[in-house]
């Protein structure tokens, strides 16, 4: 049997094995008579593997492993130590203060295919349900039928939509939308932008332009910039967050598609490396499937044996 075949066979049950192995190692490491001894190299490696396979990334993994190693284990289980450490990574991120300006303008950004339009739809619905009267703006004038897609969501959520023709200048649509929002007393204003790879300089400067134009239409706008990240993303998510933050001033992350088997471990990496808070998570295709992020729930899910 060739090297690749063996590898393939070995990996077919990887996830299962990782969790089982981790469970086993936790059991052994946490046996009462070993509680105060040093954590052995096998445990460390299993932990590294677990975290890396969840896309937590090398630097954050190193921090967690080092911390777990260093911490005196007086009576505390390994599992709790790891959870605590990840939680503390999330907790070290300062929440962004919410400006009180009205209307509140929210810009939704991200690379292609992460679920920006869907997120805007769900967010509009949630805001409407909470008694607010949002307006959505379709500023994705590039992707074929993106405006139509948002129109469907706007109808489902019973909110107004400001749209422009495909191919027109997105910044001008944003300006119009804010004017319309002010005139009709709509608040907040959610702006869906075209997906763009963070490496495309032209498209990124278009985002900068949208920001500038928004600021002209309403003071301090955009008040919030949400970066939509696909939970299946790997370490590139970190680069995305870094680039979008530097160009568009991201104030929070929306982690979508968490209903799959991906755990979005890159969120830990982002909290660790960039200190950007996670605001919402998308957990399904329904209009109600967007919920506020809870670090505690997330960490619990990360260590559920079912993944």
């Amino acid at each position, binding site marked *: 049997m060739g090297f690749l075949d063996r590898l393939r066979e070995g990996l077919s049950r990887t996830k299962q094995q990782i969790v089982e192995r981790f469970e086993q190692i936790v059991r052994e490491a946490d046996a009462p008579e070993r509680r105060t001894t040093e954590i052995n190299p096998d445990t460390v490696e299993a932990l590294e*593997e677990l975290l890396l396979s969840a*896309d937590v990334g090398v630097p954050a993994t190193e921090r967690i492993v080092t911390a777990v190693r260093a911490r005196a284990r007086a009576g505390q289980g390994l599992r709790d130590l790891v959870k605590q450490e990840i939680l503390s990574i999330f907790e070290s991120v300062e929440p962004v203060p919410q400006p009180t300006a009205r209307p509140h303008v929210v810009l939704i950004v991200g690379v292609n*295919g992460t679920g920006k339009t869907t997120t805007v739809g769900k967010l509009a619905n949630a805001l409407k349900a909470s008694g607010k009267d949002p307006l959505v703006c379709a500023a994705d004038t590039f992707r074929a*039928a993106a405006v139509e897609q948002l129109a469907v969501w706007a109808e489902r959520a019973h909110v107004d939509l400001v749209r422009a023709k495909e191919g027109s200048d997105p910044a001008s649509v944003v300006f119009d939308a804010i004017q319309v929002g002010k005139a009709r007393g709509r608040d907040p204003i959610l702006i869906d932008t075209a997906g763009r790879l963070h490496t495309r300089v032209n498209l990124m400067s278009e985002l900068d332009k949208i920001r500038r134009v928004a600021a002209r239409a309403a003071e301090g706008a955009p008040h919030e910039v949400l970066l939509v990240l696909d939970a299946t*993303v790997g370490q590139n998510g970190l680069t995305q967050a870094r680039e979008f933050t530097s160009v568009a001033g991201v104030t929070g992350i929306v982690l979508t598609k968490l209903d799959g088997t991906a755990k979005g471990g890159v969120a830990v990496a982002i909290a660790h490396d960039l200190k950007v808070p996670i605001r919402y998570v998308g957990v399904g295709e329904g209009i109600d499937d967007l919920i506020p992020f809870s670090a505690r729930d997330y960490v619990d899910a990360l260590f559920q044996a079912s993944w």
Partner: protein
Amino acid sequence: MFESFSTRIQGALQSLRGEVRLTPDHIEAALREIRLALLEADVNFKVVSAFIDRVRDRAMDQAVLKSLSPAQQVTKVVRDELLALFGDAEGGLRKDAPTPRVILLLGLQGSGKTTTSGKLGKWLTRQGRHPLMVSTDVRRPAAIEQLAVLGTKADIRVYSPETMDPVARAAGALAEAKAKGFDTVIVDTAGRLHIDDDLMNELQAIKDAVRPTDLLYVADAMTGNDAIKSAGEFNRRIGVTGVVLTKLDGDARGGAALSVVSVVGVPIAFVGSGERLEDLELFHPDRIVSRLLGMGDVLSLIEKAEQAIDQNDAEELEERLRKNQFTLDDFRNQLKTLKRMGPLESVLGMIPGLGNMKQLAENKPDEKQMGRIEAIISSMTAGERRDHTVINGSRRKRIAKGSGTTVEDVNRLLKQFTEMRRVLQMIGQGARPAAAVKGMRQPAMPQGGFAMPGKKRKKGGPWGLIKTR
């Protein structure tokens, strides 16, 4: 694509290059770097460990260490093992298929299936095929419309029946293709999670109805470790014949996709490398590995050039060059041809020795500058473009005004154009270009080479006109 990844690997291997004699310590240090690079590129932990072990075993061999060029030997080992990871198979569609061939695109939400459908249609058209596309995505709002728009843009027929039953839509398209003589049917499907039983059953039903030859799993190059799980599940339940790796024009390292190839055992068929409909390429593992290791990818470059260059135009141009009739009009056409080849950065990345993006980033050709040159030429009269010698001082002023540039810009362009003409004339007369311009290295000219005069030139030629920022 894969740039930062390749920089790290190249760096690690370069550190070996200075050593006269390699010790196991040197190799260990390089391997540590490569391991980190692979992990940060989202290559699966197990795949990385196995890869590093293999390289170590082979590189630590006494024969390698004692050879005259140990660093090259180690590079070769890394190259061989990377190739093994990428899978030896060449990309593309399956060799044999009944007519009409049915291609089914499947994958998670947002991986780029609909866009890939359009690009694949365009690619097939270029191969002389007649594809028919159909969307079976009745779930995502406006998905059907998106494919219709892409069809219009790519000039490909889209079958759009009334029925909103995915299976019936796919089957209808196949019947339509048979009746109307289309030789390929591209079936776009709704994005779905591999754990969604209902939707996976629907996919199975579509598959049963149209019996596709090619089942292409569309994967986002930016995916992390979950890729193995989802691709594996699609393969287990539906069967996958190839992977289409999308969004490779970003800085994604595509390591997870690499894991998919080695773990799930499905080859990469195509890669999507840009937002234009033309931006879909066959996957060539050897070329990708060469690029990873900084050996350039001349073959892809030539293919891109061939795609962008009209053969007749090239011959006509060659004729004019011989007669020393190269005009500003021709020059502008060359610029347009270059543009058709895609973003300059991606073109440059294929040139051996230029693959290292760190240097490129500081020395980027300014595409704006290219636009300015075009504007200057476009502001000339037809007569001026035919014969640049009539352009006097007042004409220069007018041209500068018309193109929103300065007289200096116009002067610079004309001066460089004259210089270029001189060089081209010598090439046209059969002189070695190296003799024509000092210090200029001339690569082997691709077919229709005159259409891209001296791509590696530092001074003179169109590249000299493009300021680097």
